[in-house]
């Protein structure tokens, strides 16, 4: 027995004097899940000082069986360990640990836990943990033989934010599950309250995902709002400029992986200027070599830029390979924050919403508060007159196009964090980008913002009801009808494109 015991505790050498019964440890390595679960329960109940660390290393896959192989666990065993650990951590000194522990207990609570929970409530000092404890205690006492305790329990659950309690309360309001009319009535009242709160939570969640989609649409379309909207270039290669931004991000990530692996988390901030410059440089080349010879000839521009987009896709395929490249979210962008009980907002999406606001501000300041922006607007409104007063119109065209391309590159950085990065990723965004710009009204930044918001939120609300496939169809149908009725888009601006 002694040698097996030592093997098992390889991962736990500091607990070599462990007090947990060694037979229980061998039982943990049993083939049958039922055996494992009995062992886990016994270890948890033993309340030995090393019980917590043994269970934790079992959960992490660091506990070995007598043959030195890691003990494998399945979801059922994992659930059991989580529950047992949560109970052990209920009296932890840290309030955060206690909160997580109570949350874990709430998913799998039974009547036998009531005395322990009562003790925890009495000792609890943290308001948030206490509120949750009261709720979990209510869950544990729902089937109490005393009807007053049951009544108190269903009443306490009225303030619960946990969506699971909705169905629990609904079951309680049925005569076959609850004999007392008073308790049934109270349960139903609580059910209605929880349900109402759930509806609010759902709608907040939908608005957030709508905002998130809107921010992505806006980032994809903002560069186009300059090149197409302001300059009137139908740039079919816009999606590929997004792709260049995304690949630039990938390049920066690779450099960080190789040279600064410790700072890998911070590759995204570095990628932002790099992606901007890379896409802007490609923009300059495109403008100087192809597009400038085609101003005022929209059909030729369309065909030429479409050809350019194919060239860029193929170039990316040759350089990076046809397969998607792997971009990892930095650790500060993974996971989510729970803003309300029941709503977890993913951090990468929050970042992208913030980033789109930053880019929007940047573009607005550039276009409205700088000399360059003034020149661009002047050339747009009246090229001849702008030239007469000394604006270098040809150079302004180049700079404006490069700016639009650079902004697309910034969009690429954002996309790389949520979507797949591959040579033809741009194809998926070109239609969306044109949709936003055309719907918003050509030549208007504000139009693009409103259009992106409207499309984003509308798509998400339709998706919730009808599914992603139908949502896509409905949005396109809506845009076709809208453009028929109002070809100038939401907002119209006078400019050389609009006039010609």
């Amino acid at each position, binding site marked *: 027995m002694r040698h097996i015991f030592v093997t098992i505790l390889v991962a736990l050498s500091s607990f070599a004097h462990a007090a947990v019964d060694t037979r229980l440890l061998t039982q943990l390595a049993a083939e049958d899940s039922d055996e494992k679960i009995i062992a886990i329960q016994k270890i948890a109940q033993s309340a030995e000082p090393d019980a917590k660390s043994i269970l934790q290393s079992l959960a992490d896959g660091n506990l070995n069986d007598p043959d030195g192989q890691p003990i494998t666990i399945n*979801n059922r065993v*994992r*659930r059991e360990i989580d529950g047992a650990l949560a109970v052990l951590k209920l009296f932890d000194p840290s309030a955060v640990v206690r909160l997580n522990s109570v949350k874990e207990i709430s998913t799998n609570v039974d009547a036998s836990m009531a005395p322990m929970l009562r003790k925890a409530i009495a000792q609890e000092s943290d308001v948030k943990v206490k509120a949750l404890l009261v709720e979990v205690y209510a869950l544990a006492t729902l089937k109490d033989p005393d009807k007053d305790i049951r009544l108190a329990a269903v009443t306490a659950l009225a303030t619960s934010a946990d969506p699971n309690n909705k169905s629990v309360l609904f079951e309680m309001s049925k005569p076959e599950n609850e004999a007392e009319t008073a308790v049934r009535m109270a349960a139903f009242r609580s059910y209605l309250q929880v349900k109402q709160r759930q509806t609010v939570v759902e709608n907040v969640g939908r608005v957030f995902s709508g905002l998130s989609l809107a921010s992505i649409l806006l980032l994809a379309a903002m560069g186009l709002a300059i090149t197409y909207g302001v300059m009137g270039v139908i740039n079919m290669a816009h999606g590929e400029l997004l792709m260049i931004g995304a690949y630039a991000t990938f390049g920066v990530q690779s450099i960080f992986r190789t040279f600064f692996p410790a700072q890998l988390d911070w590759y995204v901030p570095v990628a932002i200027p790099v992606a901007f410059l890379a896409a802007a440089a490609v923009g300059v080349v495109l403008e100087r070599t192809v597009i400038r010879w085609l101003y005022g000839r929209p059909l030729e521009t369309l065909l030429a830029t479409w050809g350019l987009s194919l060239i860029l896709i193929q170039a990316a395929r040759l350089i990076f390979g046809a*397969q998607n*490249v792997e971009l990892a979210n930095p650790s500060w962008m*993974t996971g989510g924050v729970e803003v309300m009980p029941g709503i977890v907002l993913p951090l990468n999406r929050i970042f992208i919403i913030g980033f789109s606001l930053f880019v929007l501000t940047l573009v607005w300041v550039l276009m409205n508060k700088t000399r360059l922006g003034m020149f661009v607007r002047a050339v747009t409104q009246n090229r001849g007159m702008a030239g007469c007063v000394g604006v270098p119109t040809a150079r302004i065209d180049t700079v404006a196009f490069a700016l639009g391309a650079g902004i697309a590159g910034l969009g690429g950085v954002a996309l790389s964090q*949520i979507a*797949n990065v*591959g040579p033809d990723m741009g194809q998926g965004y070109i239609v969306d980008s044109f949709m936003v710009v055309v719907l918003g009204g050509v030549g208007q930044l504000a139009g693009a913002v409103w259009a992106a918001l409207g499309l984003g939120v509308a798509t998400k609300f339709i998706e919730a009801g009808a599914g*992603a496939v139908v949502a896509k169809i409905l949005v396109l149908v809506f845009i076709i009808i809208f453009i028929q009725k109002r070809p100038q888009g939401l907002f119209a601006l006078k400019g050389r494109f609009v006039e010609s």
Partner: protein
Amino acid sequence: MHRRNFVKATAISIALATAGFSSLPAVAADTIKVGILHSLSGTMAISETALKETALMTIAEINAKGGVMGKKLEPVVVDPASNWPLFAEKARGLLTQDKVAVVFGCWTSVSRKSVNPVFKELNGLLFYPVQYEGEELEKNVFYTGAAPNQQAIPAVEYLMSKDGGSAKRFVLLGTDYVYPRTTNKILRAFLKSKGVAEADIMEDYTPFGHSDYQTIIAKIKKFSSEGKKTAVVSTINGDSNVPFYKELGNAGLKATDVPVVAFSVGEEELRGVDTKPLVGHLAAWNYFESIKNPTNEAFIKMYKDWAVKQKLPNAATVVTNDPMEATYIGIHMWAQAVEKAKSTDTDKVIAAMAGQTFKAPDGFLIKMDEKNHHLHKPVFIGEIKADGQFNVVWKTKGPIKAEPWSPYIAGNDKKKGEPEVAAK
């Protein structure tokens, strides 16, 4: 491009074989051409590129041992670019211009459906290496992946079992095309036969290449909160899986609360994902890289060496998966059948395929069924580990026979378990 000729360069010594020559007259006397039809770009490239590499590796292995009937195999690689009609065009090109003896290829069922008429018309031979929905039995196709009863049904049975979490409600989630739709139709019928109510099944689809899974995750959360234990069955295909699993991890939906079992996600698809938040989610396959046996160790080593030799991207971290194993088995079985038939003639090879066996990396001696063109395969259910590999938590005792016509679809009981032979 350059690969097309590299075999030729090595194939100098030629056998004297005169009898039983291929019925395809244009096949060069010194080599046998085999076609490889996998998407190397587009949404399916994430999954299919590795199959092309596996095929090339297996062909190189066979050639190193002297080829088939003394002749070297010459691979012809084409890229149908995740574009379904293009699959049919490329297949026709392989059969009529390159005159290949056999084609190894396709992943999605929609691509297989699009090439089926071509193989039928030209009497070609296709080896299809991916699990699929069944409801099909073509004379010109050998299916080396799983039929529904070798993957989908056991997976759902596991979810309903005590160890799988005794799930009572199911979300059937898929990409919008024939495989997920048909599989979910079978699963729905199966669940009903097990007494699961209509209201306890939610079905949802997303387009190919979909990347925004916020709404779907919110729906799953809501559905799972309405009482009873919920599990998700995912038939999402291609690179959509990356954003799906990212969103799943970020939204904090843990496997202990709502387990997701996937039918098209293996080691390869998980390479692009941070798997730490996904620990405990499941996949059902007939092979996992983590299965321990000497055949599998040799297979993994062969592929890793191949990746380094071919300078594949991320060669240091390449993985093997189920469809790669199925590709490997398929090519070897085809080679054995050609040796047995002493010919690459389609009909002779089809006849010789019946009952072929092969010692597969899954640890079993795998047999091609005498009649139904499917392999007898073992079923494994694995849980995702933090390192992107799978822990096998359930398996069948041995290989089980495929049922291409699912008994859960009405009218299938009358269908024969072998391809219909058209009157000549």
